[in-house]
């Protein structure tokens, strides 16, 4: 920063000054502890788990993976997880767009955003416990349904319960993300379109949607990855031995009930691969659909 670059050729400079030319000095070293921490406790465990998954308790190096894909009790968890994660993600992101379009013009936006932060903060364990009673056969929700003449509906300990908890905990997150992308778009673009006679629908399709595409793609990725790793609500609110036996339950059981950390790592790697696969698919799909400017005029 304050070191003057001397006119001498770089080779004759002391090492310290040469490094400073690349912005590597004492200040840069301040990033080192945090970096080492992430490498030691995130990158290393991931690499370790990857290698460990090829060293099964018994059998050849691929034994864990072949066991996973030959045992329906294990490989069917992938389908069960996708059956929960895909609809939940699509519902949350799709609904978040029209709601955010409305809320963006609201004056007291902060009240609503504050209310919606609460479900995110409380987390899935509390939501699972709350929904168990609220949606249960004696709960208020079913009482209202009975009062309306619809009759009692079974909403807990099955697929519906987990889906509802994924919407309850996931929607606020996708909504706030969509809202922040939407408020980042310069309003004068839309005003210009309105001046030129574009109706609300045309303004949305031709102005907002292309600018929002990048944000929606990221939003889809983040919410998919989160719903795909559903765990507490699938156990507490679902049927953990049946319809909602998701892949994280299989990984947990391998690690903490069978004490097979090699198999558990293999399942974690498969889970990570499924998430990566969908994320790549979404991002590829985005660049296929819209090739316009990526940012939304955001800072």
């Amino acid at each position, binding site marked *: 920063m304050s070191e003057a670059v001397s006119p001498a050729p770089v080779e004759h400079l002391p090492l310290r000054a040469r490094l400073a030319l690349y912005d590597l000095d004492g200040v840069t070293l301040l990033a080192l502890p945090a970096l080492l921490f992430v490498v030691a406790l995130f990158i290393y465990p991931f690499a370790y*788990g990857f290698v460990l998954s090829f060293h099964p308790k018994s059998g050849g190096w691929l034994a864990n993976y072949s066991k996973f894909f030959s045992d329906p009790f294990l490989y069917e968890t992938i389908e069960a997880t996708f059956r929960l994660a895909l609809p939940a993600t699509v519902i949350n992101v799709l609904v978040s767009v029209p709601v955010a379009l409305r809320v963006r013009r609201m004056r007291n936006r902060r009240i609503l955003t504050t209310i919606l932060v609460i479900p995110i903060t409380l987390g899935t364990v509390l939501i699972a416990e709350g929904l168990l009673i609220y949606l249960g056969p004696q709960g208020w929700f079913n009482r209202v349904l009975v009062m309306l003449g619809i009759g009692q509906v079974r909403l807990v300990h099955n697929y519906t319960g987990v889906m509802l908890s994924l919407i309850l905990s996931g929607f606020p997150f996708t909504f706030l993300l969509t809202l922040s992308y939407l408020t980042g778009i310069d309003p004068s673009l839309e005003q210009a379109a309105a001046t030129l006679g574009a109706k609300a629908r045309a303004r949305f399709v031709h102005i907002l949607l292309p600018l929002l595409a990048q944000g929606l793609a990221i939003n889809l990725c983040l919410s998919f990855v989160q719903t795909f790793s559903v765990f507490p609500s699938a156990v507490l609110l679902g049927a953990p031995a049946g319809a909602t036996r998701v892949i994280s339950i299989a990984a947990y059981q391998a*690690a903490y009930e069978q004490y097979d950390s090699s198999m558990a790592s293999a399942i974690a790697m498969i889970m990570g691969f499924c998430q990566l696969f969908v994320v790549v698919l979404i991002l590829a799909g985005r660049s296929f659909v819209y090739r316009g400017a990526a940012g939304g005029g955001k800072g």
Partner: protein
Amino acid sequence: MEHEKSLAERLWAIAIWALVVFFVLNFTAMVATVVVNSLGTRWFNAWLPAAFTARWYLSAWDEFQLRDVLIVTFEVVGAVVLLSGLLGVPAAYALARRNFPGKQVVILLFLLPMLIPPITFGIPLATVLYQAHLGGNMSGVILANLVPTVPFVVLVMMPFVEQIDPRVEAAARVFGAGTWRLFVHVLVPLLAPGILAALLLVLVRTIAMFELTFFTAGPGSQTLVVALYYAVYAAGVRAGQSIDAMAVVYMLTTLAWLLIALRFVDPTQIVTRAKREAAH
């Protein structure tokens, strides 16, 4: 035609507001269910419990050793907040002020633990921690919880550092301040609002962090949210009202800190990480 259009638009707007109200109403009713159940004597086949009592809180306090659980929770959260601040703030400063080769890779490394869900990296992480004899105790829980929070502090603090005029630092350097004194006397006071916001968000996230604590905690190192999970999982062993009393204690702990945090941060920041400062 013009009139018809506005009617359709009005109906659309009403439908959307109805959806929002329905969502908030159901969420509020769910929270209220937990609170009412924790205060009721016996709640069966009726809209409300037969009578109200506070005794479930006393029994929850004893049955779930809530005092110990709360102490563990605050020790874990305190350590996580302190350490993620100590590791994260200097790193944010270095990344905001220097453009060294490979900086993008470093930033990507900090992004990954925040984007990859804890369930996915939690099991390999717990395996490594157990091998290093750090699993099943408090230090393991703290280390595991730091994995997403250190990058969070780094990424939240970077825009705050960028806002500070580098000439202020240059002036301090000219007067002979080293990096340490620069931090203590210039940067930390200037960055205080950002540090406060980032650390409060870390605090709220760590209280509610279930997965990583669940994977690494032993019997003596359970935080409130993990104790709540085990209680709900073993429902039927204890009275439901007692579990809900613990759930209320958890909600109050979390929401009290959330309210404090919201005095300093915009709610949308909780999901978008202070990126829009420059836009306004």
